[in-house]
């Protein structure tokens, strides 16, 4: 009996190990709205359920989403709606340093006011990439070009326009930067499509050029992609030659917001629970600057959007936290337990106790869902051929319960210790906590390097290695001094304060960072 349980347990560990290994540290997913100036609802972020239940079914590689695009080919903007299907035949390989993969984008849309007008497009894009992995950075550079035939047929006003695939060009290049908690990316696209009007050979030719930068980010709590495109339509060869030009700004965002679901006063074991609502939204602005004189002003500027049905999930309800009633940090601690960021026995989580460094690091790793490697059990460790990681910190042996988290933090350059020791039980100071914040967001460049002085009144107490990151956090609006302008860097953080801090970070990642990106579109 005992042997059997041993076996099961070790198999379970193995499963978790393997499962954990394949957990989705997905390399950046740009292009969920295509690169043609249209918008889709966008992919959803993984929910807690997706992360907990490892589904055995093969993950389908193709996604179909609601999609809208404005077609400018005829000189008048026509809004068309339909679907965008993305089939990914591969992705960036975790282990290899370079490679290629393909994706097929299929667009089928029509003008809802006049269903005879439609657009169909199918393009297979091949992306080549290489990785640059250093201890101080990880980046992936990608280049995408169409491969195979790119077909496109547009029907407007009784006329059919067919894409000339041999003449048409499409090119895109993107760089992805991986910081410990967030993946950022930016790049640009450039395309020129040639259409012939009608089915006869010669005749009117339309040229549609599109160009502009892309930027975005993806993390556990929200993601955004924005494209700032400029387009030009030229008509040549017909009786009238004309041009039209303007700007297009498609963007797609997904964010997870937290709502509280309060139960009425009932003899119910739960007082209330938190739920996470996933909101997807795609929005597109367009502004035609050079145009057919017949365009009315309402047609020159416009916007469309693709909302999506919001899904939600109820999070676990924290129990045994009733002793927090009336405490400053009651709501913060409850939220963190709900989001499974804190999972120790609530009896040991006294909010006025000092927050140990190991626990803080662990909470942050769980917040950003940074992948950890489970420690091998005795059974599996028999395969000794695998390279043994050296013990980085003398006071964090493999048997330490927080070992996987501290190692994950070390590997993603979140923490360094002092070379030999990490001091896991020592309480974390405020300056250390803020520094780790900024590192997890990868936004150190917002501080000066080196920062001779920060705006805080007690600047001289801030350690020199912490100044730059504290200045960056100040510029981000994450931290402010207290009413006297002091930041009190050396004070220890209590567990309650740490919970509040982490919540603040999560809120920033859910809402504020998204608003900063979107404010560009104004």
């Amino acid at each position, binding site marked *: 009996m005992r042997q059997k349980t041993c076996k099961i347990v070790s198999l379970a560990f193995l499963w978790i190990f393997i499962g954990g290994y394949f957990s989705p540290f997905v390399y950046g997913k740009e292009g969920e709205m295509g690169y043609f100036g249209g918008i889709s609802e966008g992919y959803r972020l993984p929910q807690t359920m997706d992360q907990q239940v490892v589904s055995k079914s093969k993950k389908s590689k193709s996604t179909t989403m609601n999609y809208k695009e404005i077609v400018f080919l005829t000189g008048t903007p026509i809004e068309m709606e339909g679907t965008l299907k993305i089939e990914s035949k591969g992705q960036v390989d975790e282990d290899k340093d370079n490679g290629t993969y393909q994706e097929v984008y299929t667009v089928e849309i029509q003008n809802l006011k006049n269903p005879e007008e439609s657009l169909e497009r199918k393009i297979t894009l091949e992306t080549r990439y290489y990785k640059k992995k250093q201890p101080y950075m990880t980046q992936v550079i990608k280049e995408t070009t169409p491969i195979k035939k790119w077909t496109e047929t547009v029907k407007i006003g009784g006329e059919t326009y067919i894409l000339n695939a041999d003449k048409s060009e499409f090119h895109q290049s993107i760089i992805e930067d991986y910081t410990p908690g967030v993946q950022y990316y930016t790049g640009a696209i450039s395309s020129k499509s040639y259409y012939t009007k009608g089915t006869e050979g010669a005749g009117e030719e339309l040229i549609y050029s599109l160009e502009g930068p892309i930027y975005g980010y993806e993390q556990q709590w929200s993601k955004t992609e924005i494209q700032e495109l400029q387009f030009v339509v030229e008509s040549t060869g017909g009786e009238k030659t004309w041009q039209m030009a303007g700007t297009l700004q498609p963007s797609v965002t997904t964010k997870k917001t937290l709502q509280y679901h309060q139960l009425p006063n009932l003899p119910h074991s739960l007082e209330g629970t938190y739920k996470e609502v996933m909101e997807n939204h795609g929005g597109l602005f367009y502004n035609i600057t050079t145009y057919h004189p017949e365009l009315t*002003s309402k047609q020159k500027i416009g916007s469309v959007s693709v909302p999506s049905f919001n899904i939600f999930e109820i999070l676990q309800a924290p129990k045994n936290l009733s002793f927090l009633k009336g405490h400053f940090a009651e709501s913060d601690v409850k939220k963190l337990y709900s989001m499974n960021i804190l999972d120790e026995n609530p009896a040991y989580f006294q909010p006025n106790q000092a927050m140990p460094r190991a626990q803080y690091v662990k909470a942050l790793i769980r917040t950003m869902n940074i992948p950890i490697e489970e420690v091998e059990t005795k059974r599996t460790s028999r395969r000794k051929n695998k390279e043994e990681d050296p013990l980085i910190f003398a006071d964090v042996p493999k048997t330490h319960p927080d070992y996987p988290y501290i190692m994950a933090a070390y590997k993603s350059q979140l923490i360094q210790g002092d070379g030999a020791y990490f001091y896991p039980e020592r309480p974390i100071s405020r300056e250390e906590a803020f520094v780790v914040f900024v590192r997890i967001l990868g936004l150190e460049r917002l501080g000066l390097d080196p920062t001779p*002085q920060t705006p805080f009144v007690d600047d001289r107490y801030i350690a020199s290695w912490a100044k730059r990151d504290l200045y960056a956090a100040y510029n981000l609006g994450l931290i402010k001094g207290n009413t006297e302008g002091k930041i009190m860097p050396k004070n220890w953080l209590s567990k309650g304060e740490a919970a509040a801090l982490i919540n603040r970070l999560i809120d920033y990642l859910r809402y504020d960072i998204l608003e900063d990106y979107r404010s560009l579109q104004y």
Partner: protein
Amino acid sequence: MKRKNISSIIIMIFCLQLFVPSIVWADPRILLDPVQNRYTGSEQGTTTISSIQFRDVSERHWANEPITRMGALQVIKGYNRRFEPSRSITQEEALVFIIRGMGLEREAIEIGSRYPDLWSEGYIQVAMQTGLITPAQRDNLQNFASREQVAQWVVSGIEFLNPTFVLGNNSLQSIQQYADGSQISSDKRRAVDIVIQKGIMQGKSSRRFDPKGTITRAEMAQVLANMGDLYYQGANIIRKYGKVGAVQDQMMAESNSDLGMRIFRVRTKEGTIDEFIYERTKSPTGVAKEKNAVVYKNRQINGLLHLQEGDEIEYLVDGETQTLLYVYVMDQDSTQIVEGILQPLDQLHQGKLSIRDSSSQLYTYSLAQGLYHVNEQTGKGTIIIGKDEHPISIEEAPVGSKIQLTLQNNVIVDMKYIGHPILVTELRGVVKEIGLNYITFTDNNGNEVTKNFYRNEIQVTKLPYYEAEDQIGYIREIFPDFRYDPAQSQIDSLELGDVITVQLDPYNLQYIKKIHASGHYMMKYGKVNNVLLQKEGEGQIYITYENGDTERIQVPSNVWISKNKQKIAYTDILPGDWIKVLVNQGIIEPGYVVETVKEITVDGKGHHIENIYRGQLTGIFTHQNQFLLQNAQRLTKRGWEDYQQTKALDISKAQQVEYYDDDRRVSLDYVNRFLNQHNGEVYIATEEYYGEERIAKVTFRYGREQSLGDQTVIYADGTGSFKVLSHSPNLQADKGTIIRRHGRLVDPENIMVTDYAQIILNGENQVAVIDIKEEPGIEGLQVLRGRIAKIKDGQSFQVQSFATLQGMKWSYYPIERVFSTDYKTLFYDETGQVDSKTFIDYTDKSKIDKVYTIITHGDQALYVIDHPYVQEGIQGEIYEIENRNLSLKEVQVYDRAKGSWSLINQKNRTAPVTIENNTILIKNGRVIHSDELEKGDKVHVMTTTKLTNNQNNQPITAYIILVEG
């Protein structure tokens, strides 16, 4: 004579002893506790000292200490003040060292005395006698000793010294870790294993022991020193540790010589007291004899006289004779800084690192444990260079570059990357203050530095904030074709907070020759509360940021202000506008930040209130983030229109939506709980948010509604209380009032006199909605008609006479006038827009003498329209728009003869109006399209038909439509 001497000496001693008690010892009992042991220097001490001060072993040589130690113990010797440390040791030499170490020197010398020409014969014989070598082996003794041989001899030597020593186990495990362990000769395996176990010898790398390789004389000294206690115990040498507590001098007269003594009282580690005695006797002939011992202190080899109170020491004593042999002063704080080029890290697994200095001398040091890590199996290792730095792998280490080592007791405790030689004196920092001829900045260490400059000599480069790239680069003097350099600047372009690099005058480091600066820019986003104008185009803006902070920012006159990418004036910034401000941030002092505004961008589209609705709340969909209204209506010019039984509006901006219960701000939870089935009206302002209409503000009211229509504010007190003409009591706008000013939500303070607004009341004098807009008019544009005289294609045209439209009348001027045209000028006729190329004054298509309606802005012709001369006019209010057909009501016709207006028809006061391709519509000072007309617009229509006869309600063709209200 002698007596006198004696008495004087005795007096001296007496005096000395009088002095003694007044000196305070750090160890207060040092003189009181009993002395346990007394050790005297040896008579050979001084000669030993000079013999081991080798000329070819510098102070900084890594093996300086072991060579000194073993030299002091007389195990190793050099020749002629040279030791030749880097030479590979021969078997003969190695044996000699080891035999000395075994204490068999005397025998060796004795035997050797029989062979005066062969200095080593004695040793060799002893070696054979003790079994270290076989007679057969003696012929090879000139060859270099191999490492495994040395290992074997060392072990044999130790075992000889004390046969009862148990030297480790015989497991031969330690050899296993080396890949070349199998190459060790089988008879030497055990010995090699023991020396590895005991730390006497190490492999050449983590995988190679190199048993057949050679060993240098310095390494040999180290090996012997590594034997440590194994050797000391065997040779009856006592090793002790202690601290020198007191030093006393004594002079004594002996029978025929003067004896000077220096006595050192040492507090041992165990707490007892030992005494060292240095003696110096001077015989009457003047010959001095000393009893001295080798003292190794600060890397130097000297005698006992160099010992001082406070020295922490390790000392070796001959157990038999109680003679002091060697004192090693452990200097706690001897930090030394050395620099050199980092050599390949192939000894890292041994914890050693080498550098080569400027004279190509190689130095190897041990690394402190925390600074490196080597994985035994893979051989991969990491090393930490620089405090607070992340460990880097061996492959990444800056081999070949200059590094600086901080040594303590010859152990590397810190390393710093220096890199290549520094050529110029550069300082970097952040600007705090700029004066006429000085600049103060905070350098990278936080210190405040002030340097001077000559205004007309200093070279300044700073890229303006809008320049993305430095085109010319670092060296500007070299390229003689001086291209335009946007970075070339004056000292005045430097601002507080700029990050600068300063190059100093090498002849006078107080003066700056060159400065390069880079601004530190940040974008802030917030809503304008109030705008104050101070001087020409400059002033202060009160701004509220998204997080609620308010600030007053100073806007200087040279700031670029734009909206929708068009430059606007400072006075065009309105309260309620959302602006992005680019600032250069400078931290003068902790807690005191100065920001200079560089650019302001006013949001074009953002936070623009699209619609205002009223209705009743029937429900809230929390997951889909929607408010459900019933009986919803939208506010238009004519009042509440567009009735919808239910309407869903989005509240996804849940974070920033403002909810008001009457005039109190509340949360969504409050609304959900208490106001979900509210009986009264709810007023909602929506804005466009990325293609969707989302709620920005919601107010619940309890009173009865009353619409005041369009009013002009005649009095406002700045707190939201104001007066209009048609309503006598003061009206009160509160925080819950939806106030839309030029399309944006503002606070009650922004209601001002002469504002023209549509006002909805709810309750007695409580304002629910006030929509402030521009007073309608057509200023700016002029409507003219002219007869063409001449045309200059694409440039201008001249009319021989023209008429201007004022109100409904044309005023005629028989004078010529020129209007300019450009590519933006649009030409219309009854077919619609025509190409400007048709507007020419030659060929049969000439337009000379034709009369056109011209819309101008000053002398610039914007539109040239070919349509009939219109003299008749009507005015009315649009109540229906369908494509190009308008329906007007309350229509009045202008009677030109009488110059007055009269109703078109008593019973049916409507008239249908059609818009043609060459109809011109003007609203708010610009030409618009028909789709910008709204229901409720009051228009003047000019047409050709005489309307007083229009009894049948024929559609009227409008040629000119002016929107008046």
